[in-house]
């Protein structure tokens, strides 16, 4: 048996890849099944042990949404219409992607530290950890998006052809925040301070992004342009274009926003590739 050392099980530290990006690609090659299984396991772990189980995945965002609606539609009654839509529906469409985004940023950053055993005790490609963590958050998001779609159908905003843009925005959103974790997850694993930094800016991000106000309604043209720099707005507004406004992705008025977004994504890829490569081998020793 010892003679048949087949090439499938070959491991060497020689000939290191040039970029972190190629390392990440190689680490994902042929791992789909494993990653899927891990993402399901992660989902179960998050919601198991409670009576209502996976229902909590829906209850939590619904409850937050209810509170926000109560505060703004019932409490502060004077601003009930935003961008021509009742505040509840406007908020709903913004809050569903936000719930995923906050989960992806925070959960993604914490993922390596939370799954320490894979890094310090097993030979496990570290980048897969971020992928399966984000993937399990995506399942919840898709469930919420379906519920949101049903609510919109009942109210009469949906269905429309622009709803199909979901299949552009959703995968792009997954990819974007996955790439973000290539930087944030190793850094958070390395330094707990960095993780705390991220969790403390989350509330700020919520209010700075147009989740229940419209960034397109800002009167100051400079600040309005400044909002393009926040990639979260690209998705929040994208969802609203697809589910409320009925605006195409290719609408000429929003080209600048799209260009800015893709430039940022490119930057993030370069940064993630750099930091992932740099920290990958150090993490098992310092975690």
């Amino acid at each position, binding site marked *: 048996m010892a003679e048949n050392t087949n090439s499938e099980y070959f491991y060497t530290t020689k000939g290191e890849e040039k970029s972190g990006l190629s390392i990440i690609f190689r680490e994902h090659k042929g791992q789909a099944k494993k990653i899927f299984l891990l993402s399901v396991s992660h989902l179960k772990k998050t919601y198991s042990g409670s009576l209502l189980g996976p229902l909590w995945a829906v209850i939590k965002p619904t409850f937050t949404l209810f509170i926000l609606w109560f505060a703004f539609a019932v409490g502060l009654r004077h601003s009930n219409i935003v961008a021509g839509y009742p505040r509840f529906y406007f908020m709903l469409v913004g809050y569903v992607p936000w719930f995923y985004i906050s989960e992806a940023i925070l959960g993604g950053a914490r993922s390596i530290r939370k799954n320490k055993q894979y890094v310090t*005790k097993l030979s496990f490609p570290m980048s897969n950890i971020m992928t399966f963590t984000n993937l399990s958050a995506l399942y919840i998001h898709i469930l919420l998006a379906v519920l949101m779609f049903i609510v919109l159908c009942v109210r009469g905003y949906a269905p429309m052809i622009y709803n199909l843009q979901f299949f552009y925005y959703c995968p792009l959103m997954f990819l974007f925040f996955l790439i973000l974790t290539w930087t944030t997850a190793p850094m958070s694993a390395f330094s707990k301070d960095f993780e705390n930094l991220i969790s403390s800016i989350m509330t700020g991000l919520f209010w700075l992004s147009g989740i229940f106000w419209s960034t397109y309604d800002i009167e100051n043209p400079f600040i309005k342009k400044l909002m393009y720099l926040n990639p979260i707005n690209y998705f929040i507004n994208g969802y609203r274009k697809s589910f409320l406004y009925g605006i195409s992705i290719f609408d000429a008025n929003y080209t600048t926003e799209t260009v800015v977004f893709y430039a940022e994504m490119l930057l993030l890829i370069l940064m993630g590739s750099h930091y992932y490569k740099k920290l990958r081998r150090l993490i098992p020793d310092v975690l």
Partner: protein
Amino acid sequence: MEIEENVVIEEAPEVETPRVIDRSGEPVIEFENVVKNYYLYKSGRERFKAMFTGNRGVRQHPALGGVSFKIYAGESVGFIGRNGAGKSTILKMITGVSYPTSGDVTVRGKVAALLELTAGFSPEMTGRENITMKGYLLGLTDDDIAEIEDDIINFADLGEYIDQPVLTYSSGMKMRLGFAININIHPDILVVDEALSVGDSRFRKKCRKAIKALIDTGVTVLFVSHSADALKSTCDRAIYLKDGGVEFDGTVDDALERYNADIEEIRRVRREKKEARRQRVLEKRAKKQAKLAAQQAEQSGEVTENDV
């Protein structure tokens, strides 16, 4: 192939047969001038800073200082050395958990490490699901897993618990499942740490037997132990590590001799130091007492003077 193996076992049960090792081909494990330094951060602040300065100025602990060796298919190699000599670091590199600071590590073959048996289990999944999971983590395909699943279940002997979530298992049961998986994946390289303890004595016996059977099939074995008897009976080569370097690489007997001589030397030095310290303390005490006596004598002298 399996039939051949069986024949070999039947022909030579329990008898030490010198293995035929082919050293002309590529080694299964190759360490080339491997250096490993661990960073020692003083504080969270230093860690945070190191992220942006590239670990400049951070104190380092040298764990391995240029280790080179080659292990060929079918060899059974023991690693000896005191705590902190670098044994675990080397094993971690072979299992692909840790990476060298410089130098290269090459491993050709499937590694089963009886080190972290329960690592990688998902507690909310059943034992059976975890077999698949762990199989994926070890790089097996679906076919491989299907083939060995029954063997694993039989070996772990968990009864109905195999379809219960792992979080309901006792630590002994988890260990048993972990061991059963690792021993049954048909590895090319087996890494055994003797400090391993698995379940009750009955199961331990079973484990020992399974390890022995696996070794007899001719896999490459890496064995870490402090027990001279265990090393002699399992290994035909030993690497003695000292302060992060290969001090000796050769027969088990010679390696043990060197190791024991060093241990003896260390004990002797320690004894001498202790003796010297004791001597110093005694001297000090004697001096102190003499001083005290002198003072007392003076005082009593004064007292008597005053009295008069």
